[in-house]
């Protein structure tokens, strides 16, 4: 082997070594980090129970709270994002009218995830269905697949987003169950804002939680239960 050749080998060896060192401290970063380093747990299933008897017609507090928390404009045009909507329904034969909030139902078997070609739509271990906007190509298949019309597409350039809720043009978005708040141990903004306590949020798997007990003691339904998507959001008095 010529002299040049051995030198070159030596050079390659040392540079590989240097890279390894550079990566090793990089790895250590994660061990010494502060903050909530706990991953979402699959023993948890976040959900909501909405009591339609408590939800008042004309009240929009949950929607406003959501808009403020997530930095949505609050406009309701065809190209505006709506993560939660108030729906008024009426039984034609009896005349009974109801008002209820509608948002992503955080399905256990989400069709939006099935159709997503980039795996941007995904379900977190704790049952929250999200869009990873880093991967979303804006094809909007998920919007077509969702039976609840829960998703919106961002049509315009956005500025001054909430630092906790990044969102931008060309991607699809929906109710995230306020995942940034849940990870801090808080309730979703809508559940906190409802003065009539119509939105009960909690862990459907935790035997000590209010929602676990209530789901087992009062009649509640999932919307379009026939689709067998097992939504995490349930409605009482529907």
């Amino acid at each position, binding site marked *: 082997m010529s002299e040049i050749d051995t030198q070159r080998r030596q050079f390659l060896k040392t540079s590989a070594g240097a890279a390894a060192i550079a990566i090793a401290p*990089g790895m250590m*970063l994660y061990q010494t980090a502060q903050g909530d380093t706990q*991953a*979402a747990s699959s023993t948890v299933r976040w959900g909501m129970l909405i009591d339609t008897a408590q939800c008042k017609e004309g009240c929009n507090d949950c929607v406003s709270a959501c808009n403020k928390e997530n930095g949505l404009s609050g406009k309701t045009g065809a190209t505006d994002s709506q993560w939660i909507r108030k729906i008024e329904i009426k039984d034609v034969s009896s005349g009974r009218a109801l008002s209820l909030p509608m948002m992503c139902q955080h399905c256990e078997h989400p069709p939006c995830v099935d159709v997503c070609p980039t795996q941007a739509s995904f379900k977190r271990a704790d049952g929250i269905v999200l869009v990873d906007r880093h991967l979303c190509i804006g094809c909007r298949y998920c919007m077509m697949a969702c039976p609840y019309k829960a998703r919106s597409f961002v049509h315009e350039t956005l500025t001054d987003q909430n*630092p*906790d809720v990044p969102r931008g*043009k060309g991607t699809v978005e929906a109710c995230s169950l306020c995942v940034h708040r849940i990870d801090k141990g808080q309730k979703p903004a809508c559940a906190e804002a409802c003065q009539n306590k119509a939105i009960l949020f909690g862990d459907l798997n935790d035997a000590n939680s209010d929602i676990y007990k209530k789901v087992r003691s009062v009649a509640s339904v999932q919307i379009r239960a026939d689709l067998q998507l097992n939504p995490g959001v349930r409605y009482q008095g529907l």
Partner: protein
Amino acid sequence: MRLLVSLLLCLCIPQVWAAEANAPKLDVGKGGECVKDTQWMRKNHMHVLKHQRDETVRKGIRVEQDALKNCVECHASTSDNSVTAREDSFCVGCHRYAAVKIDCFECHASKRKQALANKDVK
């Protein structure tokens, strides 16, 4: 061999000097001690951010220290609270010099949380 090395050195050293002289002058904001030394961060910040982004979005592991939000908190200019507003803003200054487009701030806030909160009050 020696000749080759010295030739390389002669060629490289002025390059390094020149690079330092032309290096962008950045508004480092509050600055202070970063999570890693400056040179390491210059070279590797994108890997840290990308790793953290996947861990956070997909698994819910939020390591505050490595969050982009935390970078902005320290490095946003003390005059306009932004990492992108001016030619010499912390992110823009270097990225312009290196001719690398930053997409981060099409979705992520480029301003300190405090600045955005104050704007809401007005």
